[in-house]
């Protein structure tokens, strides 16, 4: 079991409470007893100083405790603190935001986690429930890999890392984002881990300050999505996933085209299992002198968490890795079959009476290949979170599947065409 305090893999000792044999910390009984039913999911927020990590978490707690989510997501949803301390943290943060106050800056430290059991998020009915384990440290901890190793080693345990980016606080987003990601990758490698087992969720924070950047088409689609993203939007479960995918794709393009952060994207796609995008406004509007002039109105704050739960392999009940690949490969096969059949017909027609089968086979294979890659591209467009490994699997599937099936289909079609013509 993962000790949430020292992050060691341990067997907790029962002695008037559960204790970690490594760090001697007393772990909430609910965490231990519910470990299988509610496995821990590390929520790791990575971002530079002042980019809104602490406020994002505060807003998330506010949303989970103060909003009517339980009414929207009946009957299963609940968010439960695991200890007095967690309860205090969640409630004090929620109350702070409710009172229009903002949390202070976070010092550089290896943080104590805040644990929240979350169940019944309806966007992913097939995913298991989980215990979200939040770690919040200072942005200074992510300025150097050595600091990350010291203060943010929890990031190594995360299945999905949230890269919180406030574009309004970045003079040169392309450069700064690349530097941050590079530092993070070095830090995780220095810890002995690998980012290739992690998904990367790029979360644009302080979205209320991005009006100018998002005003032009096609990014105004993001603006609209954000503005419609108050807590009430979560009541509409149907289609929520699809919207998130669309916005993720849109932000993918935004990052490449508008921010010109190609190197960042290349780094991300090469080094992570999958990459997704999200946009949030933790407060709904910019604070003035450290206080909220209007009531806090979190926008799309839950999206990164919904992504995280949906993408978590450890929470996946039914799909194995192989089965998951099969989904992507199906697209490729379908492309191969359809284009192969077309190739077969064309081959038969082009070959006439002589060597029609050979023409059908060759053209069927070629067009099947094209179809397979196009199928993969469709998959990519539908679900941006496709890792390089999945791409490779899909491509092999295309070569074998579309070549064989397209060839066979082409040959049959060619043969029939010859018979019919002779007849």
């Amino acid at each position: 079991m993962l000790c949430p305090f020292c992050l060691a893999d341990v067997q907790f000792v029962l002695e008037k409470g559960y204790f970690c044999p490594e760090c001697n910390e007393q772990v909430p009984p609910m965490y231990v007893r519910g470990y299988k039913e509610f496995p821990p999911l590390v929520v790791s927020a990575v971002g530079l100083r002042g980019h809104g990590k602490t406020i994002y978490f505060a807003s998330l707690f506010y949303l989970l405790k103060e909003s009517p989510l339980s009414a929207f997501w009946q009957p299963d949803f609940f968010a439960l603190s695991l200890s007095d301390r967690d309860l205090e943290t969640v409630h004090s943060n929620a109350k702070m935001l409710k009172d229009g106050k903002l949390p202070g800056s976070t010092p550089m430290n290896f943080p104590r986690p805040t644990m929240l059991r979350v169940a019944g998020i309806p966007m992913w009915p097939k995913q298991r429930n989980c215990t979200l384990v939040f770690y919040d440290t200072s942005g200074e901890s992510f300025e150097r890999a050595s600091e990350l190793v010291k203060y943010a080693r929890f990031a190594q345990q995360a299945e999905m890392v949230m890269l919180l980016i406030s574009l309004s606080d970045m003079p040169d987003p392309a450069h700064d984002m690349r530097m941050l990601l590079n530092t993070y990758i070095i830090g995780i490698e220095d810890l002995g881990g690998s980012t290739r087992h992690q998904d990367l969720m790029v979360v644009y924070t302080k979205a209320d300050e991005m009006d100018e950047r998002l005003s032009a088409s096609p990014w105004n689609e993001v603006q609209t999505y954000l503005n419609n993203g108050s807590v009430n939007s979560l009541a509409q479960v149907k289609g929520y996933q699809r919207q998130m995918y669309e916005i993720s794709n849109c932000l993918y393009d935004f990052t490449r085209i508008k921010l010109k952060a190609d190197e960042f994207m290349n780094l991300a796609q090469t080094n992570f299992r999958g990459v997704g995008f999200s946009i949030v406004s933790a407060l709904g509007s910019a604070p003035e002198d450290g206080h909220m002039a209007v009531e806090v109105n979190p926008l799309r704050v839950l999206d990164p968490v919904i992504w995280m739960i949906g993408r978590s392999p450890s929470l996946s009940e039914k799909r194995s890795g192989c089965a998951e690949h099969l989904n992507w490969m199906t697209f490729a096969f379908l492309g191969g079959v359809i284009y192969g059949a077309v190739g077969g017909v064309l081959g038969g027609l082009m070959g006439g009476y002589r060597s029609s089968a050979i023409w059908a086979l060759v053209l069927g294979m070629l067009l099947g290949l094209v179809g397979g890659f196009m199928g993969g591209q469709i998959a990519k467009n539908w679900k941006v979170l496709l890792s390089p490994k999945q791409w490779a699997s899909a491509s092999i599937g295309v070569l074998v599947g579309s070549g064989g099936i397209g060839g066979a289909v082409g040959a049959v079609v060619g043969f029939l065409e010859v018979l019919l013509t002779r007849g």
Partner: protein
Amino acid sequence: MVKAEVQAWQHIYTSVERDQSPHERAGFQTLFYSRSGLTEAEVKEMEARLVYFPSAIEPVKRLCSTISTGKVMVAQIVHLPEPDRLGRKGRYLAHNLVFEPPAFEQIDCDPFLVFRQFPFVTTVAQALEAGDSETGEMPPVSFQIARSPASGIEAAQAWPEQDLGHLALLALRAGRLAGDRLSVAFIGEPAQVECALEAACFAVPTSLRPRCGFDTYFHGCNPVSVYYWGLGLLETPGNRRLFRVDAQSRRLEGQVAGRPETAYERWAVGCIEECRLETLGRYRDHAFALCEWLEGRACTDSLIEAAPTEVVDSVFRFNRERVQVLLRTKLEEALPDILARRAFQHLGARTTEILDQLRKRFRLSELMEALYRAYESQGFRTPPLEEIQAIEWLLQRADHAFLRLLHICWTDQSFDALHRELRLLRDDAYQRFVQTALRFGFVKILALPVPGRGEAFLDVYLDMDGSARVGLAALVRTLLGVGEASCLERLTPYVQAQSEQELRALARIVAKRPGIPEPFRHAVGDAVAALPAGRTGFLAQLVDDWTAWFER
């Protein structure tokens, strides 16, 4: 009150904006440090400890800790009310003094003296003035600290004895607790926590004090990332493994440290229970050195040598069993077991003597004297054969006249052997031995007179209780036998009181020996003449002659 001049490296850690930073970086960072004494790695290590989370009270935080290179950091952290560029509160400023271990020892490893007497930087403006904004350098600082041997006694006196004893044990076991990664939670406001920490550390000797790292305001911090022996907390922690001290009501809660286990713990707790805090504060280092030595650990010899008798007495009193075990062990190195057991109880009675014996090698002469005293205390009863053999072994290695004499007596050797040894004694020693022998009766009286010591023998013999004396005729015959006729004159007053049989025997002895002093001869003659007529004739003479022969 003594003043000590100490030097410390400085380190300032705070949150500033880019334009105030020597590194042109905004946020929490090391602003300045003494590059001449601190490495970057040390600074990074210390940064991890300089964490402050504000609460409703936003107090001054104080901490003390030893870093991995052995240097000791003594820091004060204050909350900064001004928000940062982003309008966020939560800024703080840490001013950290870093001592080399010898410099810290100069102030008795007492961080509380530093907290009370050193003017720490409390604002960013002061910090910017103190350091070089171009280079990030901050010079080391030298300052005077007034220290008194009983520093901290007031904090300790405020605690009930029993709780202070337990608190002291927790502090003394800081090393062990650190090994088990267990801490002591001091619950209360930071000022109360600081007083409780000072009370806890009062009994801790200088050399152990750096182990008692603490943070008076650990609020919000993570014990997994930084370990302290003492954690100041505003509220009772959830972790039941933590020892809990209520700093406000000065009581220990929940589990306590148990009984004293080491020699020093026994002494310290003993002093606390006897309300001798002054002694504890003044002599803890001496007592600690002595206790460490008692338990076979490395210690400072000079402190043991300088330990006052009062401290040695109390240390030995609270550690009687340990002292005895050590004595026995040391004895067994020098003597066969059976003799070691015998001599053990009769080693020097004064603690300073015992200490001297324990610290140096036992001298065999001292051990033999102790052994002799042991036999004396038991009336010189003949010991088992094995023990007598052990004495023989011992006598081959060193000499002890009385033991040698005792050995002769217990092994029933001839009078000649005994006389040989007795003749070797000086007069006073001879008389002492005779006195002892006459008192305890472990040897026949008539075996004691030796040539040249008739007067000395009689000095003792005539002083003894009359009922224990032997017959005068036998005594006279023995004295004459060892050539001590001249001293018979001293027996003259006793002739008159002898029985007829004794007188006739005396008459026979006197009649046949030359050199007998005339007064004694006359006294015998007069006494015999005064007797009623006895046997006469040849047969009577024959019987007397036979009797005399047998008596001889």
